């Protein structure tokens, strides 16, 4: 194999080939690799077939198995397997029929026979100094020639993009995570649509009233495409979500996408501000509680945190309105986008549970970290407490906290409907709730799926932040 020898000198081709080989081991990457480089794949396949026949592998393989069969190895193995299996059955007190035993024994014998044959083949090839040729080897030899390499770059360009992605662990991780997210979002769209499709509710009858005739209902259904089969409607919805064109809502005859794009930023802004404030308050409380466990400060704040977790948002909102709008006229009771004072109470209500959860998580994860051995080591080295805490403990303690922040943000965005109703905010949550009585299918579908998309993106960011904060995860990413 001259190509083989020549390639030893070619660094780029070696690297590419080993990458190619690695990717072929992974089922989904193998599929993508072969499909994206389809012209190249076909070319390589033909070349590979040709080389196999030329090398005479098939003839050698056949000869070996024939030889082994004639030597009576197969019968020997069968006999051995039969004995083994029957002994096993006797030991476990199992009763099986003769045929079943025979089937099991011949399967076992086959595996062993094939293994033996492969062994022989490998030995024979070794003697002839020509290791078995794989598809990846063909690729290797092919690109070792600069001209062919350039050709492969041209005809298999998408494949090389994929390989570049695969070669960089971070890019690969991000890409895999994004692909997963796309599938999850598609799943969410299908799920929500299916739930609304199988609904026994009849939007047409609900909207047109009891006096509506069958023709009117049929006309309504035709206008909104409700008479189409399931798959067509599903496809329309998914297409609508991707192209931000969900059509008109059943009520008010407005464009759903416009309505959502008006309402969603309000909810998102309130949630993000609440998140930021909550994190700023919760982290110090949790850290101080953890550094002074079982002190008065710790007990008091953890009690308040548990209380914060237990208060329903709507009740807290009502009590705030009662005390700070009605009894003391400090803040307006209803939200108004032009008056930031009116956003204070909704933000506090949204952030309460969040602050409580993050403070509790900070405390427990910091406590766990400061009992680790490496912290003891750091203290034994003579570092000051502050240095130990800030340089060694907090960074590692942050990882579970980030998870909680990501999870809670999703919960907050989804649960904002209640708070929005209390403060009369026209956000996405109250939009969905207002439309659910009909049910206004495009509006609900759009609202729920866009919220889910936002949350999924936040989760991707959280996952990437892990890598940023934790060197252990970074190194793990590189290995796999």
């Amino acid at each position, binding site marked *: 194999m001259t190509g083989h020898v020549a390639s030893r000198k070619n660094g780029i081709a070696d690297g590419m080939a080993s990458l190619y080989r690695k990717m072929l081991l992974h089922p989904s990457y193998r599929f993508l690799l072969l499909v994206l480089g389809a012209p190249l794949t076909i070319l390589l396949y033909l070349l590979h077939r040709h080389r196999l026949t030329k090398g005479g592998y098939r003839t050698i393989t056949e000869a070996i198995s024939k030889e082994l069969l004639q030597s009576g190895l197969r019968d020997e193995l069968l006999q051995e397997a039969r004995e083994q299996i029957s002994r096993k059955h006797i030991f476990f007190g199992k009763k099986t029929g003769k045929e079943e035993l025979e089937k099991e024994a011949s399967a076992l014998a086959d595996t062993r026979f094939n293994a033996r044959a492969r062994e022989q083949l490998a030995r024979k090839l070794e003697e002839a100094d020509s290791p078995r040729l794989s598809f990846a080897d063909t690729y290797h030899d092919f690109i070792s020639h600069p001209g062919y390499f350039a050709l492969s770059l041209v005809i298999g360009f998408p494949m090389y993009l994929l390989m570049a992605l695969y070669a960089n662990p971070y890019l690969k991780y991000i890409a895999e995570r994004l692909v997963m997210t796309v599938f*999850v979002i598609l799943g969410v769209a299908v799920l929500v649509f299916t739930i609304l499709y199988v609904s026994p509710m009849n939007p047409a009858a609900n909207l047109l009233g009891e006096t509506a005739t069958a023709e009117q209902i049929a006309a309504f259904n035709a206008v909104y495409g409700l008479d189409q089969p399931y798959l067509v409607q599903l496809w329309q919805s998914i297409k609508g979500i991707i192209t931000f064109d969900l059509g008109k809502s059943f009520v008010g005859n407005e464009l759903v996408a416009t309505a959502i794009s008006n309402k969603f930023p309000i909810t998102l802004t309130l949630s993000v501000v609440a998140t930021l404030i909550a994190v700023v308050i919760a982290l110090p409380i949790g850290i101080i509680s953890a550094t002074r466990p079982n002190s008065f400060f710790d007990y008091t704040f953890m009690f308040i945190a*548990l209380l914060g977790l237990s208060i*329903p948002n709507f009740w807290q909102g009502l009590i705030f309105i009662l005390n700070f709008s009605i009894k003391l006229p400090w803040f307006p009771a209803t939200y108004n986008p032009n008056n930031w004072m009116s956003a204070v109470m909704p933000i506090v209500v949204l952030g309460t549970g969040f602050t409580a959860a993050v403070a509790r998580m900070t405390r427990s994860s910091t406590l766990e970290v400061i009992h680790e051995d490496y912290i003891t080591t750091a203290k034994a080295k003579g570092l000051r407490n502050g240095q130990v805490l800030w340089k060694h403990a907090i960074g590692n303690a942050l990882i579970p906290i980030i998870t909680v922040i990501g999870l809670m943000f999703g919960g907050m965005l989804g649960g904002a409907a209640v708070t929005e109703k209390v403060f009369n905010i026209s956000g996405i949550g109250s939009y969905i709730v207002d439309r659910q009585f009909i049910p206004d299918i495009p509006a609900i579908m759009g609202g729920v799926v866009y919220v889910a998309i936002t949350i*999924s993106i936040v989760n991707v960011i959280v996952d990437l932040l892990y890598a940023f904060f934790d060197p252990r995860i970074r190194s793990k990413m590189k290995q796999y």
Partner: protein
Amino acid sequence: MKNVSLTKQEMNFRLKSNPEYGQASFAGLISLALAVLLLWNAYSPADGSFKAVGLGAGIAFGLFGLLQLAVWYLIRTNLIRHAAIGKATRGLGFLLLPSLFTGNVFVASTAFHLVKKKKYAAYTLAVYSFMTTVLVFGVTALNLFKPYVANGFLSGMTLLLIAGFIQLIALLLIAKYGGEAVIPRWMAIVAIALLATAATGNLFSLFLSLMLFAKLRNRGFTSGSRFGDVFERLSRSSTSMLGLLFVTFLLTLSITSLITFDYGLAIDNNYSAILQSPTAEYPLGTDNYGRDLFSRIVFGARISLIVGFLTTLIPLLIGGLLGALSGYYGKRTDNLIMRALDVLYAVPAILLAIAIIAAFGAGTVNLIIALSVSSIPTYARTMRANVLQVSTLEYVQAARAFGSNDWIILFKHILPNSVAPMIVQSTLTIGSAVISTSSLSFLGLGVEPHIPEWGNILKLGSAYLETHSFTAIYPGLAIILLVLSFNFLGDGLRDALDPKLD
């Protein structure tokens, strides 16, 4: 007498390692805080006068709180001087016991702990089972001020009285004999009687009687069961016991209210008593249809508990099974199940519930289904992680080597050893299920509006926030207390079941 060489560290250790010390300060501070709250509520700034009931309760809480703090100071000096609590100080606990009859469970439970030097789970359970019955009896007795009572009121009260009496006797007997490893054979009678009182919904009685049976059967041959161990640890945490106390109190009240409360007062309109302020006849006032808020909240407890329990149990079973299969079989099964659940997980629980309710209509059954579906992935993930961990243990490999089939390995060997985190998880999420239920009811998407559910009561009350705010405040307090109790209980259970301690 005074030990001058005591360092600050030693002193701190003596104080912190003593459970009575911490409990005493907690109970004292909480009672004083509640006293201030009660007095502030009873005070009407318009004419500078106090409402009689609020004033009485406030003073009672304040007095016992002060007494408790005095006892706390005595405990402190005792500990610093002698490193132990003196007999006289423990005797003072008897003075604090009557606080139970003012409804002050904090001081009462501390007092019960103080008077007994050697504590064990059976004693604590006996104390709490007795306290539950006393509280339920007291709350039910408020019905006496009503113009009429339910038909079964008298018989129900008699039964409660008998149950309380049995539990008191059991408490005294357990205080005397319960601490030994081998308890007398006739304690079986006590255990059976306690089991009968558990029919009122008293979980403490149930656990206590199970514990006694286990002890009788065991006769000191083994060092005790895991169940006993967990209770031994749980009973040391006063906050989680107080949480369980409130849950049990509501459960008992929901069950006994079947005969002791008149449902009519909670649902029938009474236009002669619209929006009344709290009085003896209507302890928490009336709503805009003249319905008694107190009765409504008591009946609402039943729905909250049922919905909360079911929306925890259903996903626990389904999610647990899916997670177990996914963790045990791995590979393709795992991928299939977990990716499907990822889709469910990507939609926030409340939004998914709203979508399901939008499709199938509002109602209790749909609410339960909606909330259950949205929490399946959380349980499945927890269970999967546990199963993955447990299936690598040697005894599972041994079972496999011995030729057990997959189902037997899974259900007999793996699942029983991976339920502990699931129990903790379900206790912690039952609280959020209660919140979700009332939130959805508040939005008009939950329980049917005519049923007195806490969220529904609050929704009606929120319309009268300005003029009659109590109609919105009291049901909210009930929700908070229930959720807080579940959270305390969950925290305690997590500590008690923590494998790191074993």
